[in-house]
């Protein structure tokens, strides 16, 4: 036994005698993780969150979350002698005087942008592959919660420096709060400690940003990961992969080295972006004052869709009985996002309701094999993209020599027309891809070799595909649509007829598929 082994042994012994961890560790060190590039998206979320914690802690050592007015006397000449909040002045201090401070600010901001992008990417992967199905509905809801928290946390974060751009963002947030019927102006006054902007908001959101929400994040992420661990990861269908097993690499050492290494890669890429691509140069914006603004005011990308919805809203307000209701704020700012996020959170339950499928699923769907779900996803994505484009309408207008009016009307119409169109196109594409799969299994791949038959006809020789590939293309199940009669056994119309009708229609739409290759098909082919 070498010396290192001895030391390790005695450490393990010490820990095990106090915790009994050996049995658990032995089992879990060989835990199997399936491998697929798309499974890295969730890892990127986790790692950028860790990077956010590290870089954020660094920033708090110098950041002064106060709206107390100070006169800037730092090294950045253009702002010297200007009055500004201590928050803005300390952000300038971090950027210009603390060595590595600007780099850390950039890393923190880039990590936030990538964190949100990875969450959205991870969410799309989970949605399009059906990974949210039983038993993973809880984790889906936790994910939607984390996405929502991320949007709020990101917004609060870029609001902290109190520069002209972020102050404008807070102004808009205040207007949304103020627009709430009955309680709006009260809530706004409580949140801001009086009239906007006041001197309380930055210190308050600082506490929320560095303590409350990160705490919530940590709790939710912990549960999210524990569930992944306990329920074991899903896997894509393929030879040897079934609903009853999980095929992949053991945690120690392969997965550990890959995942651990990947953390450093994510960190390295974020550091690289921060070194070469400057974002949020707050010193160019100047300190916040409600009387000023700069053209091209843009939120971070994950708020862009919300801003785009607000921009395209029609100018609707109700004035009645001495009260005002701002539909132009409430509909795009609260009602539509509320419906979207609630619908997203509930989707796993809605799908299992209309498919009637209550079984566990550990094998992922290839997106083409669930055309209706895939089309729904692309439809939602299109809705978001149209909103996002309108969120940048001023930038697009100046870059592509268009008028704001063209883009605004384009998106106002597009938001109703394009999502359904995307649904139809996607569904058809999925079915075409299914048909292509079917052809591939029945007739094999094209070899490019032409053959002239005895009677002069030219044919291309097809080579059969491998047994593995054939299995991958045909192993999915095709559930038939639900069959519910509208009347019960005694011929009486069931209660909730409309609900049943809706369920049947959804179920039927969901079950549309190109029949996969059956034994009969193969037999028929052999006769040719």
């Amino acid at each position, binding site marked *: 036994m070498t010396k290192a082994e001895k030391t390790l042994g005695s450490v393990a012994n010490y820990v095990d005698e106090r915790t009994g961890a050996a049995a658990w560790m032995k089992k879990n060190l060989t835990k199997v993780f399936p491998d697929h590039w798309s499974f890295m998206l969730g890892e990127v979320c986790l790692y950028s969150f860790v990077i956010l914690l590290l870089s954020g802690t660094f920033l708090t050592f110098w950041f002064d979350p106060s709206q107390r007015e100070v006169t800037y006397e730092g090294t950045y000449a253009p702002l010297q002698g200007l009055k500004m909040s201590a928050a803005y002045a300390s952000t300038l201090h971090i950027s210009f005087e603390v060595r*590595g401070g*600007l*780099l850390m600010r950039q890393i923190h901001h880039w990590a936030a942008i990538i964190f949100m992008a990875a969450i959205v990417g991870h969410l799309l992967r989970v949605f399009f592959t059906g990974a949210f199905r039983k038993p993973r509905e809880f984790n889906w809801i936790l994910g939607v919660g984390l996405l929502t928290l991320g949007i709020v946390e990101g917004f609060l974060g870029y609001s902290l420096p109190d520069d002209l751009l972020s102050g*404008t963002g807070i102004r*808009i947030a205040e207007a949304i709060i*103020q627009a*709430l*019927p009955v309680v*709006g*102006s009260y809530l*706004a006054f*409580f949140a801001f*400690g*009086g*009239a*906007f*902007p006041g001197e*309380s908001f930055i210190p308050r959101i600082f506490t929320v940003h560095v303590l409350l929400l990160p705490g919530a994040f940590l709790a939710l992420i912990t549960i999210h990961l524990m569930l992944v661990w306990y329920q074991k990861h899903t896997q894509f269908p393929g*030879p*040897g992969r079934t609903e009853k097993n*999980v*095929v992949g*690499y053991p945690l120690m050492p*392969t997965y550990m*080295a890959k995942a651990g*290494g*990947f953390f*450093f*890669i994510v*960190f*390295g890429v974020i*550091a*690289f972006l*921060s*070194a*070469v691509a400057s974002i949020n140069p707050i010193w160019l914006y100047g300190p916040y*004052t*409600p*009387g000023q*603004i700069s*053209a091209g005011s843009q939120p971070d990308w994950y708020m862009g869709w919300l*801003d785009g919805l*607000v921009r*395209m809203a*029609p*100018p609707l*307000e109700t*004035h009645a009985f001495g*009260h*005002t*209701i*701002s539909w*132009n704020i409430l509909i795009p700012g609260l009602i539509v996002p509320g419906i979207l996020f609630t619908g997203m959170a509930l989707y796993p339950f809605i799908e299992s309701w209309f498919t009637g499928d209550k079984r566990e699923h550990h094998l992922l769907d290839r997106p083409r094999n669930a055309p209706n779900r895939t089309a729904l996803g692309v439809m939602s994505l299109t809705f978001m993209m149209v909103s996002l484009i309108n969120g940048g309408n001023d930038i697009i207008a100046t870059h592509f020599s268009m008028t*704001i009016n063209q883009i605004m009307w384009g998106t106002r119409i597009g938001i109703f027309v394009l999502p359904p169109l995307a649904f139809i196109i996607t569904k058809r594409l999925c079915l075409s891809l299914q048909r292509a799969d079917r052809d591939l299994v029945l007739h094999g791949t094209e070899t490019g070799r032409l053959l002239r038959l005895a009677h002069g006809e030219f044919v291309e020789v097809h080579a059969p595909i491998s047994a*593995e590939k054939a*299995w991958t293309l*045909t*192993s999915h199940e095709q*559930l038939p649509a639900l069959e519910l009669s509208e009347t019960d056994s005694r011929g009486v119309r069931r209660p909730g007829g409309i609900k049943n009708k809706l369920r049947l229609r959804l179920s039927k739409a969901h079950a549309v598929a190109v029949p996969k290759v059956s034994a009969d*098909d193969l037999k028929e082919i052999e006769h040719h």
Partner: protein
Amino acid sequence: MSNEIEAIQDPGLPAHVHREADVDPIAEKRAERQVAILFAISALGTLLLIYSYVFVPQDLFIFVPVMGDQNAHQLGLGLGMAISLFFIGMGAIQWARTLMPDTEVVAHRHEFRSPENEREDFVKTVKERAGTAGLGRRSLIKKSLGAALGLSALTPLLLLRDLGPVPSKELEKTSWKSGTRLVTDPGNRPILASDLEVGAVAQVLPAIAEGTERALSDIGKDAVLLIRLRPSDFQLTPEKFAMTHDGIIAFSKICSHMGCAVALYEQQTKHLLCPCHQSTFDVTRGAKVIFGPAARPLPQLDITIDSEGYLIARAPFSEPVGPSFWERNSQ
């Protein structure tokens, strides 16, 4: 469903294919060297980081092709850190890919549902335990507990009350009073009508007493935009026209939609545009909304000149400025 006979059978896991480094000792050595080189590059990155931190002055700018002038200190720190971290990751992954076991392992899943007898036992236990507490029987305790818990939930709401004052009429008031002089922002200088040429724009605020500070929350309501047109350019009602002075018209600069500063004035079209959500207001028609989500025109300030010829407000705003709120009476 899955009982139906599949046309094509599962061929099972494909056979494991050995990598070069598994069978060839030379390839194995090569892979080992590659990993070591990657880790060495990372160490060089850390050296670059240290060098930039200690020796490169914070105000040194260098020319970098494609990127243009760059701060050498920032770039050195950033690239050093990026290289240092990235290549640790690359090394670890190369190690895993070439030298660590790559045989796929199969583990079995279990159904999450507990066995039937366990589930029954669970229900029985819960019923028993709940029964011993008498939850079902003691309705007095249940009701009083519910009431107590409900009431105690008011505590945090109550304690948060002092976060801010109630709005009262605060949202409806500005600092503009009858006779308040319009002063430049920045500068706080009073303005003569002749200071503004036709086509000019100026941001103004109400005059404040010498030596007093302006609170941001006041600017958030008081900011006014002055625009001078030819009087014949206006298409206003007689009342609104009377609020202008010799072609000078004054609007609240705070957007009636969400409170951003309506700062973009287009001289050709005489339109005001809010950069936040592109609400567009026609100055000649009293800041009427001609495009975008804003539902109300910008409130107009009634202006005139005092005995010395300086612009003053004849009256305060006749309606609240800024975004809408529930108590706003727009009639």
